[in-house]
């Protein structure tokens, strides 16, 4: 069991890659940087694959397998070990992260080939892989927090990769600061966990939590869950802290694909799923998670309807899909959330990479209004992007269909189902289908809207198209684990994850009544699944997009004019950035400038420092006059001193 007993190897590989490229890559040719970066991540993926093989031989009572490496810090009863663990959930995350990460590394060798700071890019990217793998393998909250903050750091570094561009540097700062707001809650949550359970390791927490009752009203578990969820809101870009993610598109496209679609932003979902024993005992927190998820899913889908920047559409789509994952967790179907996380990593990673390929082909153009008719010119990109679009829209047979269907079904009939949550989800699914096909139609269909003499559209090189094809394959078949469910069979994905979510699940208030379903034949079940509302709205979205952007290409303009107010509202993203600027940023700037800067810093701090100096200078200026340089005056001072001491000693008797 070489890897299982040395889990740290999986982490050490990308870390070593980051260190080598960061320290020496500057003088190396691109091929050397490539082999270090791609090599380290590929080895990490192979290690994960080997880990999966070893994991499959573990007995059920050995899971989760915890590897304890060293005691990191001890402060009284507070002890933190550097420990990693492997269970089914970790396996899913590890496979997703390392495989998608590897593909995106390969893709980046093509996409970034003409960029400066090549070694720096790959060093950051490897560092990101290290932190992300730490996050998913952590066996306690503190190690998880290290990964959590580490991916945030790499996100900041990579969004601001072109730091000479002010908008990119600002976007990096915005991402960092916004997620920090959530992390305050996360940190307090961790402290509250320690105060409540006396430990921060998952095993101890869950064992103690399983002895606690489900909180009917709010209580300490609810507080913990809401605080932890605050961190997830920041990291996974949910309402109201989602504003950083669209701006994060300033970073290079592979970064958007890896960090801001496939992996980092899903860390919040992973965390909620990981902490399921606590969340399951805090129904109020669950409801909050579900509501935030559903509202975000719908809300950001509406913004995506009218955006014209190809990456911005995908960014709002990501926010929306993350909302679905939280919705799934919130209604108690963690497995569906993680399932969507995985399929989303495939198809959204692919969408971003394909969009990157489009941008690459267009020579840097991101505005869909200046594209069109690219279908025949870049066929590989077109077909892969079409597959990803079919997947995200939830067209039956593609990965997204299975996962989204499961989420919506859980929202309809799961443990914490609610009609309004389901409705938001279904309407959001229809909007998703519409804006995604709008993107495809605007980009690849119709007449070219760019100057064909100036833009020489070309298909991307092999190292970019091969990852696209692999991800396209996964976007179709990545969801088929759940396929048997459609004919009344077993959902293999859910069954695989079941131990994680049932081991510490609260006992049911009443024995779960298995509703004796009327016996139906597999064909009827399949027919039901394929004609459900999610499928209907997905097809509807497709048709509406087709009608608007292929059939009647002037219809969008007329519609925009007839509902001008709504259109402007959406185009300006509900003015949320402006509202935040007015409510938070500008008051803060005002306080910083007029109070903290001019009063506290210049008045108080500078005043104290300068005052001390000026007292010393003034008194010194007076005292130096005593030191005249005249020997006789010194003699006189000696005598005066002697007299004073004599008087003190003899006359006043002071000793």
């Amino acid at each position, binding site marked *: 069991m070489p890897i299982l007993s040395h889990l740290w190897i999986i982490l050490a590989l990308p870390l070593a890659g980051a260190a080598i490229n960061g320290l020496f890559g500057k003088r190396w040719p691109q091929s050397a940087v490539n082999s270090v970066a791609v090599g380290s991540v590929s080895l990490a993926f192979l290690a994960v694959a080997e880990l999966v093989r070893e994991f499959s031989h573990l007995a059920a009572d050995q899971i989760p397998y915890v590897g304890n490496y060293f005691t990191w810090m001890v402060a009284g009863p507070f002890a933190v070990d550097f420990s990693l663990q492997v269970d089914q959930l970790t396996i899913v995350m590890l496979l997703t992260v390392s495989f998608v990460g590897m593909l995106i590394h390969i893709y980046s060798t093509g996409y970034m080939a003409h960029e400066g700071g090549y070694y720096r890019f790959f060093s950051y990217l490897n560092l990101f892989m290290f932190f992300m793998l730490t996050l998913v393998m952590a066996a306690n909250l503190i190690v998880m927090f290290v990964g959590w903050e580490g991916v945030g750091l790499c996100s900041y570094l990579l969004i601001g990769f072109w730091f000479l561009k002010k908008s990119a540097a600002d976007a990096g700062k915005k991402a960092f600061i916004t997620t920090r707001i959530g992390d305050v809650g996360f940190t307090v949550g961790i402290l509250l966990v320690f105060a409540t359970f006396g430990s921060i390791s998952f095993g101890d927490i869950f064992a103690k939590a399983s002895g606690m009752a489900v909180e009917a009203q709010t209580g300490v578990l609810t507080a913990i869950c809401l605080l932890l969820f605050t961190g997830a809101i920041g990291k996974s870009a949910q309402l109201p802290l989602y504003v950083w993610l669209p701006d994060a598109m300033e970073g290079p496209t592979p970064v958007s694909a890896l960090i801001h679609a496939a992996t980092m932003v899903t860390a919040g979902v992973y965390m909620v799923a990981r902490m399921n024993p606590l969340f399951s005992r805090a129904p109020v927190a669950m409801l909050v998670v579900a509501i935030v998820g559903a509202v975000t899913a719908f809300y950001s889908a509406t913004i995506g309807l009218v955006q014209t920047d190809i990456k911005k559409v995908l960014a709002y789509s990501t926010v929306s899909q993350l909302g679905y994952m939280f919705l799934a967790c919130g209604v108690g179907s963690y497995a569906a959330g993680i399932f969507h996380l995985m399929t989303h990593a495939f198809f959204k990673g692919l969408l971003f990479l394909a969009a990157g390929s489009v941008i690459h082909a267009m020579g840097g153009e991101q505005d869909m209004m200046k594209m069109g008719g690219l279908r025949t010119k870049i066929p590989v990109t077109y077909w892969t992007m079409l597959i990803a679009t079919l997947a995200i829209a939830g067209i039956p047979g593609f990965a997204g269909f299975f996962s989204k269907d499961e989420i919506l079904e859980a929202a309809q009939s799961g443990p914490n189902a609610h009609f309004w949550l389901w409705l938001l989800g279904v309407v959001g699914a229809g909007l998703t289908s519409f804006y995604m096909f709008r993107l495809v139609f605007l980009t690849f269909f119709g007449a070219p809207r760019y100057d064909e003499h100036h833009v020489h559209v070309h298909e991307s090189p092999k190292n970019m198209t091969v990852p696209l094809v692999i991800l396209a394959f996964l976007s179709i078949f990545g969801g088929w684990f759940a396929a048997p469910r459609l004919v009344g069979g077993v959902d293999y994905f859910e069954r695989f994850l079941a131990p994680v979510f049932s081991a510490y699940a609260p006992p049911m208030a009443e024995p779960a009544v298995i509703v004796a379903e009327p016996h139906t034949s597999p064909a009827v079940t399949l027919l039901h699944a394929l004609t459900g509302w999610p499928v209907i709205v997905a097809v509807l979205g497709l048709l509406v997009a087709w009608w608007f952007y292929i059939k009647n290409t002037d219809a969008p303009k007329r519609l925009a004019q007839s509902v001008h107010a709504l259109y402007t509202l959406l185009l300006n993203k509900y003015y949320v950035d402006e509202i935040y600027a007015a409510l938070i940023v500008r008051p803060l700037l005002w306080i910083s400038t007029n109070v903290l800067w001019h009063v506290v810093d210049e008045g108080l701090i500078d005043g104290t420092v300068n005052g001390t100096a000026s007292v010393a200078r003034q008194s010194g200026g007076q005292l130096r006059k005593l030191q005249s340089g*005249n020997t006789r005056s010194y003699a006189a001072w000696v005598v005066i001193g002697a007299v004073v001491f004599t008087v003190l000693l003899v006359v006043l008797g002071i000793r």
Partner: protein
Amino acid sequence: MRTVPIEWFLILSAILFGLGVVAFVFKRNVITIFMSIELMLNAVNLAFVAFARAHNQLDGLVFVFFVIVVAAAEAAVGLGIVILLARNRESLNVERMNLLKF
């Protein structure tokens, strides 16, 4: 046998010391100031010896030897400085030695 009472020694010592102080402050010649320091030291020596005899203890005498040794060393260094000053300034007037500042 009548002995001289200790008060007399102390009064003499105080007078000598006072003369030394006055000379130390008011004289301008470096050599004179130097001599006034010696005068003060020896006034103290006298007081030490007187106390040693009155209390029949050796401590005071030991101190006296120390003072003599220090005074000898000080005289050696001090006169060296005086000679250098006299060469540089061609004067022994302390009023002209005014660079001991800042």
